[in-house]
């Protein structure tokens, strides 16, 4: 097999795995958008906040240490204990649910029936608020997140591909784990929404608010539920990205990568978010490999947007989105 083709295959595989993470972030957007028509700008910051909290709890950091120290003149930073990863994940999830509840109680409930643009602005405010709270609670230094996921070269794949093609593929174990977890998560979400009472209620609210109310569904309850699920998805995405590149502010920028994914997949389609993420992941890696190197590189910064833009022109509703026909 020619070397070039082998490299391309390796790049494609890596692209697929990067794409899984894009899908995951995009999924958080889709869930909330479907249920309440809100484009949640804060989704990326939610991932950052979840990751920060997770690290903080695991390391036994004192929340708001800076604030406490400057007010009381103390000098505390750590409780001096370490919390096991699993327990810390559960605690973080509890906090994300509390956040979901608070968002609904103190922000969204007051904005019912407002224009989408107003709700969007509210989530921008929410994003900066949450970013600030994250800073205040856990500090702004870069943290490493290690929940015990395997990392580094997967030797089996390396060996097998070497024996087969005479060239060993470099696939990171973390990417493989991330892919498996993402697949399980998506499958779980689909099963939940198709086969449980809450899932049915969720789909009902996504479809028609009036009708949902008339069969006894509390919109507030469903909104807290969707924001909690979106919080969970953010946590998973935060763990993956955090483990890969450290927990720092730039993590919240993955939300920006989700935008082209959404344009591609459509804002209301869960399969769209998944396929869109994979296309962008593979597309940008392959483009960089095949063309980027000849034109000076760094195409990964913009490729996704250009692809999404082209797509928008020809299929504004996205891959699987419903066609929008204005009724007159």
């Amino acid at each position, binding site marked *: 097999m020619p070397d070039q083709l082998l490299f391309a295959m390796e790049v494609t595989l890596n692209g697929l795995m990067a794409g899984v993470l894009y899908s995951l972030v995009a999924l958080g957007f889709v869930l909330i958008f479907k249920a309440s028509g809100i484009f949640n700008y804060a989704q990326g910051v939610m991932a950052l906040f979840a990751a920060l909290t997770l690290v903080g709890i695991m390391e036994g950091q004192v929340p708001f240490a800076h604030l406490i120290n400057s007010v009381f003149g103390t000098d505390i930073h750590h409780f001096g204990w370490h919390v096991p990863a699993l327990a810390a994940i559960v605690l973080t999830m509890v906090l994300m649910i509390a956040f979901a509840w608070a968002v609904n109680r103190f922000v969204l409930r007051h904005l019912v029936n407002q224009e989408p643009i107003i709700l969007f602005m509210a989530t921008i405010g929410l994003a900066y608020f949450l970013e600030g709270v994250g800073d205040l609670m856990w500090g702004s230094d870069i943290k490493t997140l290690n929940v015990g996921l395997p990392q580094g070269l997967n030797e089996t794949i390396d060996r097998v591909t070497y024996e087969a093609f005479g060239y060993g593929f470099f696939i990171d174990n973390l990417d493989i784990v991330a892919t498996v977890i993402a697949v399980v998560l998506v499958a779980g979400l689909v099963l939940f929404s198709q086969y449980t009472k809450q899932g049915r209620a969720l789909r009902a609210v996504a479809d028609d608010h*009036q009708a949902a109310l008339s069969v006894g569904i509390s919109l507030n309850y469903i909104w807290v539920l969707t924001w909690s699920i979106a919080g969970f998805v953010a946590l998973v995405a935060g763990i993956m990205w955090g483990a890969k590149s450290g927990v720092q502010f730039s993590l919240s920028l993955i939300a920006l990568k989700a935008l082209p994914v959404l344009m591609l997949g459509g804002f209301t389609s869960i399969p769209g978010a998944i396929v869109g993420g994979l296309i962008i992941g593979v597309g940008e890696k392959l483009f960089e490999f095949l063309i980027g190197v000849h034109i000076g590189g760094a195409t990964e910064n913009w490729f996704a947007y250009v692809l999404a833009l082209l797509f928008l022109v020809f299929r504004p509703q996205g891959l699987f989105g419903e066609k929008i026909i204005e009724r007159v």
Partner: protein
Amino acid sequence: MNAMSGNTTTADGRKIGGVLMEMRNITLRFGGVEAIKDISFDILEGEVRAIIGPNGAGKSSMLNVISGFYNPQVGEVWFRGEKRPPMKPYEVARLGIARTFQNIALFDGMSVLDNIMTGRLTHMTTGMLAQAIWKGKAEREEVANREIVEKIIDFLEIQHIRKVPVGRLPYGLKKRVELARALAAEPKLLLLDEPMAGMNVEEKEDMSRYILDTNDEFGTTIALIEHDMGVVMDLSDRVVVMDYGKKIGDGTPDEVRNNQEVIDAYLGVAHD
């Protein structure tokens, strides 16, 4: 005095009981518009109560007050002998009051079966965790509720479209699915906003039959809005007539038909 005042039996042998719902001096405003002006009436257990009146009379508004979609500025709503505090629509639904909408509100993306299953939500009590884990209790609950839904599907003769996404159905069938979803709640009070609007004669006859059978077989109390006078006379035990937000008549179909004010309203006699 009303012609019927509880615990009687109709000519066709249905039992009419005591007062199920009572509206007392309801006034509802939208900004400067008074959609309902100081209206009182009651609904007896087991009866078919119609609300009629010209366009814009405030009929849908009245139904929306009963179902909690609108909260009146003045007046009291009494249900099963208790004064009802201001409630959200989903809370009213949980009291056992189901409804359909004038402009059909279904879940277009979901199948007919799933749509009707949502009508059972108020009867499904298994908690979130049990549902998510899908253990015995949740499964039994799903199966038991599914059986009731299948009965309603048979009753309304929509077996052939069970798996079809509702968005693809023609108008007449959508109306029927909406009725099915409301019936699935096994409501104590069923509210129907123009269940026959936009239907052809045959569809209207079918729908009339389903409404009568519902009342007859399950003893469901029904309040319905309808434009077609003929249909109203056939279906209902008593009629409230509204015009420009006011109640201008209340009684049996015969009484109402001979009421001069009602006749004027329907013939479009100028208002002063």
